[in-house]
């Protein structure tokens, strides 16, 4: 498991171990986020991402562990005393207050005068490009605008920890693109630690410096998006980044996976992962000549359209996805149930320790 967080205590940032217990569910994750760093909690639905975020905010009780922000304990404080800003999934802008009043709410609670709070709020609305919508009620705002007001409202309390729960999930595809790049700029400017929850790998990779993948309440992998994308360690991550992933046993340049032997460029011993992209799999009607490595016989389980190509699912000694061109499908006359040979180039196959 790769960890970029140093072991010694740092002056700024978040160090947390979150244990939350629910009937039939237990969350136990460690999370280190440096000041200025953006970490994305990535995981399937029900993995515990939102629960982790609620625990950081003080909205879900910890059954164990601790939260430390900038060297001070956070878990002993109620939500209203934590120096946090939260952007909720559906924003939760107060419907009876204008955009300006929504943003001014936090500063007012922190004791700012009415005039001072409104000045801070107006400046923040200006920063997110909504100065012209200050008096609009939330229901008059578009999804993208509401998201920006929610961000301004969270930043208005000058938090040291910014928490975002699926900040782009409620937006349509077009708004999402623009809002994502805007959000990226604001997160870059933010000086405190940021934790972002998402189930969208693209959001995670664009917005975050580091990914922490959670499955079933536990961290299964973490690292930069490039590391995670190259070396997936679970089927979920492999699916997200679009790779075929297998566990095997390495002996030098060869890895045995089920009944198939892969040639790889790495030299490793013992348990390893082997990963390769579906586009590197070639299909043949009859057994191709040459080395028996990286070659196996499988049965076509399904054929579906995938972008401009066709994705073929194969069953056999290993299950694999292969991306081939429509021309190849026609030429090979592929149909479900058919037996076929599959091969993958050694240079496209990547092995790393399990």
């Amino acid at each position, binding site marked *: 498991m790769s960890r970029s967080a140093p072991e010694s205590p740092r002056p700024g940032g978040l160090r947390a171990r979150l244990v939350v217990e629910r009937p039939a569910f237990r969350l136990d994750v460690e999370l280190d986020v440096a000041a200025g760093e953006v970490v994305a909690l990535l995981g399937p639905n029900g993995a515990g991402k939102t629960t982790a975020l609620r625990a950081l905010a003080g909205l879900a009780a910890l059954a164990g562990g601790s939260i430390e922000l900038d060297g001070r304990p956070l878990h002993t404080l109620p939500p209203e005393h934590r120096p946090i800003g939260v952007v909720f999934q559906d924003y939760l802008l107060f419907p009876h207050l204008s955009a300006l009043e929504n943003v001014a709410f936090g500063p007012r*609670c922190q004791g700012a005068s009415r005039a001072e709070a409104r000045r801070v709020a107006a400046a923040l609305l200006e920063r997110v490009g909504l100065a012209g919508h200050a008096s609009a009620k939330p229901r008059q705002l578009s999804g993208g605008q509401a998201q920006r007001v929610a961000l301004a409202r969270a930043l208005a309390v000058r938090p040291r920890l910014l928490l975002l729960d699926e900040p782009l999930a409620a937006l349509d595809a077009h708004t999402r693109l623009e809002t994502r790049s805007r959000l990226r700029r604001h997160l870059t400017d933010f000086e405190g630690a940021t934790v972002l929850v998402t189930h969208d790998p693209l959001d995670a990779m664009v917005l975050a410096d580091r990914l922490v993948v959670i499955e079933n309440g536990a961290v299964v992998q973490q690292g930069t998006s490039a590391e995670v994308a190259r070396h997936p360690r679970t089927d979920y991550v492999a699916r997200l980044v679009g790779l075929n992933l297998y566990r095997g046993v390495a002996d030098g340049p060869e890895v045995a996976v089920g009944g198939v032997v892969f040639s790889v460029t790495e030299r490793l011993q013992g348990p390893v992962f082997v990963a390769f992209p579906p586009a590197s799999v070639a299909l043949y009607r009859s057994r191709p000549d040459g080395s028996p490595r990286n070659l196996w016989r499988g049965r076509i389980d399904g054929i579906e359209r995938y972008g401009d190509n066709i994705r073929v699912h194969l069953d056999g000694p290993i299950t694999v996805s292969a991306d081939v061109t429509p021309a190849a499908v026609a030429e090979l006359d592929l149909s479900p149930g058919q037996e076929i040979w599959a091969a993958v180039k050694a240079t496209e196959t990547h092995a790393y320790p399990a």
Partner: protein
Amino acid sequence: MSGRLPWLLLAPALAGMAFLVLPLAGLLVRAPWSTLPARLAEPQVLEALRLSLVTATIATLVCLLLGVPLAWLLARTAFPGRRLLRALITVPLVLPPVVGGVALLLVLGRRGLVGQWLDATFGVSLPFTTAGVVIAEAFVAMPFLVISVEGALRTGDPRFEEAAATLGASRWTVFRRVTLPLIAPGVLAGAVLCWARALGEFGATITFAGNFPGTTQTMPLAVYLALETEPEAAVVLSLVLLAVSVIILAGLRERWVSRI
């Protein structure tokens, strides 16, 4: 929807409508319209009307002051016996008002559990006073407000309150600036129901506060008494109560009370 309306539903529906509307129509038909202005100006009528409006309004304010926090407690906190408390609170809703009046006498009467102490300590006696009218009305009307406000709290999204907490709001600030504005329609609907119930209160009032013109004789009491001595006056008083109810309901209906 198309096709014929089923008579098995339509017939009872029309009968039900007639049953509710005809008595009101009868009131309008038999009203002594020629002598109406003179009768309305009678000091006894004006006095009963003023007393009714004042006591019902004060009773509603008391219910708001005590009932909204009570509804909040029931909807937003968890404590042992909460379900039992909720059941107890709704008892006055189904209790015959006369029984309520008797119960109030037993507690707040001059010999009552609390009344005895009030009399001895402060020299205050509540039965058969205008304050007694307010207490009787509030006792009977408060459950309407509590139920209505609690319903509004339960259907409201508590995550708005969480959002406010993450912005640094104390629980009191959350209640004042987020919870209360969001449930305002429910509070107003409850207050209207509460006020209407207080305005029409009869049984508990006459039992606990008696029937003294000027201090405890509200409109419903005046109507009942007039019916025995002067039926025409009873019709006039009833018309006034009907008019007040309709005006209040119509004034608030479109904007606020549509969810009742």
